[in-house]
């Protein structure tokens, strides 16, 4: 698979198109909310699926969120999905497909089309009835192994990179504010991983807000990704001088490792002096090396 390209069409709707397996071109379309801000991406999938000597076409609409995470699918009226020998998907098959497509870590990721079935062909067995490999039985729908595999790879394949790069091109103050307002850790990680130094500076209040509300190791990772010159700026030091105690220990360590003694504000120094632990810790060592360097 390869990305053919992303272009902005005349009415400012970015279209990103890429080639899925078997040279199927898929065009991804961006959708906007009433304020004109990016909302979701979609694509109409029309792809041939071949199982042994039999081929048929799957048609279905796919949706991804702003950072390329699979969101949902819609079946197209009159073009329901089928299994082997054109048996229509049941409601339960559709539910299972939904679960499969929502599993970014599916075992299907590491299987090629050719590896899906056991190579147990004998003269009496053709490709269609080959047994699905036991390891992936839970990851597919019986009788629709290749369909599941093809659709999963479209949902989690090149579309993700294309969508992410399109979203990056659309970054604006309003969009960033909208994105961080959802307090979605995945989106926040995407933002701080994507931002250039200039963008960190441009969207600093939003970044600091995500750090304040971050869960798990987000604060630590965001601090680590923030350019040192921005982190040592008076604005950022002001923020951390106030919020240092609210950071978890490991985010504190990340911050202390990036602060530069010669750039330390008085407020930050005062905060750090108060934050010394009673017991021995690496944090204390870092603080000492920062504030004793007058």
């Amino acid at each position, binding site marked *: 698979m390869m990305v053919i390209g992303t272009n902005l069409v005349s009415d400012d709707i970015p279209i990103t198109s890429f080639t899925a397996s078997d040279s199927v071109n898929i065009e991804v379309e961006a959708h906007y909310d009433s304020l004109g801000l990016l909302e979701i991406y979609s694509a109409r999938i029309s792809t041939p699926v071949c199982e042994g000597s039999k081929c048929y076409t799957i048609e279905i609409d796919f949706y991804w969120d702003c950072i390329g995470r699979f969101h949902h699918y819609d079946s197209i009226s009159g073009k329901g999905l089928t299994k082997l020998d054109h048996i229509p998907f049941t409601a339960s098959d559709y539910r299972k497909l939904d679960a499969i497509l929502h599993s970014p870590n599916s075992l299907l990721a590491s299987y090629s089309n050719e590896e899906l079935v056991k190579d147990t062909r004998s003269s009496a067995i053709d490709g269609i009835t080959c047994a699905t490999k036991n390891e992936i039985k839970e990851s597919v729908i019986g009788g629709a192994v290749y369909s599941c595999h093809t659709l999963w790879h479209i949902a989690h394949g090149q579309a993700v990179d294309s969508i992410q790069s399109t979203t990056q091109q659309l970054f604006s103050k309003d969009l960033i504010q909208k994105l961080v307002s959802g307090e979605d850790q995945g989106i926040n*990680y995407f933002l701080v991983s994507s931002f250039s130094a200039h963008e960190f500076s441009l969207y600093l209040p939003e970044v600091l807000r995500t750090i304040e509300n971050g869960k798990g190791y987000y604060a630590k990772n965001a601090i680590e990704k923030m350019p040192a010159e921005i982190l040592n700026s008076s604005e950022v030091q002001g923020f951390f001088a106030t919020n240092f105690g609210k950071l978890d220990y490991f985010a504190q360590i990340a911050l202390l490792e990036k602060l530069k003694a010669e750039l330390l504000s008085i407020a930050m120094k005062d905060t750090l002096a108060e934050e010394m632990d009673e017991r021995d810790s690496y944090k204390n060592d870092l603080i000492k090396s920062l504030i004793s360097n007058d």
Partner: protein
Amino acid sequence: MKLLGISILSLLISHAGLGQSESSVLVETESFKDKGGWVIDQQSMDVMGSPYLMAHGMGTPVANATTTVSFAKKGTYRVFVRTRNWTAPWSDEAAGKFQILVDGENLGQDFGIRSKDWSWVEGGIVEVTKLKVEVSLHDLTGFNGRCDALYFTSKRNDSPPNTVKGLEQLRGVLLPVEKEPSENSFDFVVIGGGMAGTCAAISAARLGVKVALIQNRPLLGGNNSSEVRVHLGARINLEPYPALGNLVNEIGPTQGGNAQPKDYYEDDKKLQAVLNEPNISLFLNYHANEVQVEGKRIANVVAQNLETGMRKFFSAPLFADCTGDGTIGYLAGAEYMSGRESRSTFNEPTAPEKEDNLTMGLSVQWFSQAMDRSVDFPDIGWGLPWNDEKAFAIKRGDWDWETGMGKDMINETEFIRDYGLLVVYSNWSYLKNHYNNRQEFKNEALKWVAYIGGKRESRRLVGDYILTENDLTEPNLKPDGTAPTSWTIDLHYPDPENLEKFEGEAFRSIAKHITIYPYPIPFRCLYSKNIENLMMAGRDISVTHVALGTVRLMRTGGMMGEVVGMAASICKAQQVQPRDIYLNHFSQLERLMRKGIGDASLPHTQDYNEGGTLMKTNK
């Protein structure tokens, strides 16, 4: 590297010879020179008094176990056999029958058929006409017949004692015991050679600590060894210490899967990693079951060789309990918890309203193999009543063949494991002989059934901090965080349907999961609150029952071992106890954790069975 404790097979003869009193000889079967197809089972030795030999033939009688017994005098001897009928709790028919041959002559009766409990059974009279006699255990069924010891006496009214205490005294008279500490050159004694203990030993050794590693099986790996066959689980190389886990990556098997062929578990890789460390002395086949305490510190741990019975003293300034069962802590008087704490105890939403004894169970996994011909399996009469509705028409039993939930995981280990064997055999015998669709199983041979049970939970030793569900879910990160636990809070319960079908004694389990962010386990959970020189790693650390649900995974245990080994090096360098590290030297441990102890240049192979987590885990 010194490899100790495996070249002792021939000592029995001289023991029997030297140790005999005037007219009686005690022969421990685990000391038999040639064990044939019999295996040593030590899992219940602290309860029933000794390791024993077991005929684990999975339905095919195993080859004779044979040894030479020396007598001081010729004459007429009465023979006693210490054995039991392991299926007595469920059936009138005995599964594990065997005979005793003395110089090839059958004593004339079958054993393993009478007593429900371990006891001495009179085996008849033999005429000893020469001073060296060959004695054999002859298995009749292949279904786990078991024999602990034989006692020959020429005294008229002599019979061996049935109590564990009495037996201990008898052994003291008839078998040799080391009286003085002989192994006192260690800085650090690690008891338990599972993933946690192995990593603890290697980590400490690489940092210049002289380590004794004591393991009560002939190989390393514990639940991840080819004896139990549970694959490693959870993640390594995580925030906030991405270098932790490099050692787990170094010694962990490269492919995953429960109940798979032996090679999957790469026993030799773990053993070789230990053998490569000049600072480790490895004591395989030694079971530590005595602790000598001075004040609030352990002075010696005493471990018994599983074959010779020789008891060896290990003295050191520092110990790590990586036994899983918290055996060393328990014997030293360390505070511990077991069962489930009530909801109000630690304010845990998942805890039951009232405390109880429920623990997660022990797995007896199994699998069959397709052959190119039909294969018979005995139509057993001693199995549980079975039918098509009860049958599991499958060819591999995974982790969820789990028994003993609600039983005493330490004092009822033998029963719990035996029930696991019973249901595997009951199901398989039914599939092969009576199942409606038995044709499907015609060519299948029962290839492997575990006889070493895979335990999940028993004692948890209490540290200066007890990790709880709320710490994990909030998450409430602590400055002394160490190895990150990343698996879900994964708690097992009896499968309700199975529980109903099998009248309250379930053998299938279900798991309930709560996903968490990777959470660094506080260092204060890795040392005992009241035994000053005792650390722990693995499933016996200071956590609640609910929190155990996540920390019990073996990659996490391995990382705890890495940390405990690092802590041992600081204890040695600073001449301090683990608590002092937390209070006064923690920055040193942090630096070691940031650096890691494993080979970071190796390819990352530990990407199977990582489990779900709430967030991106790698930097």
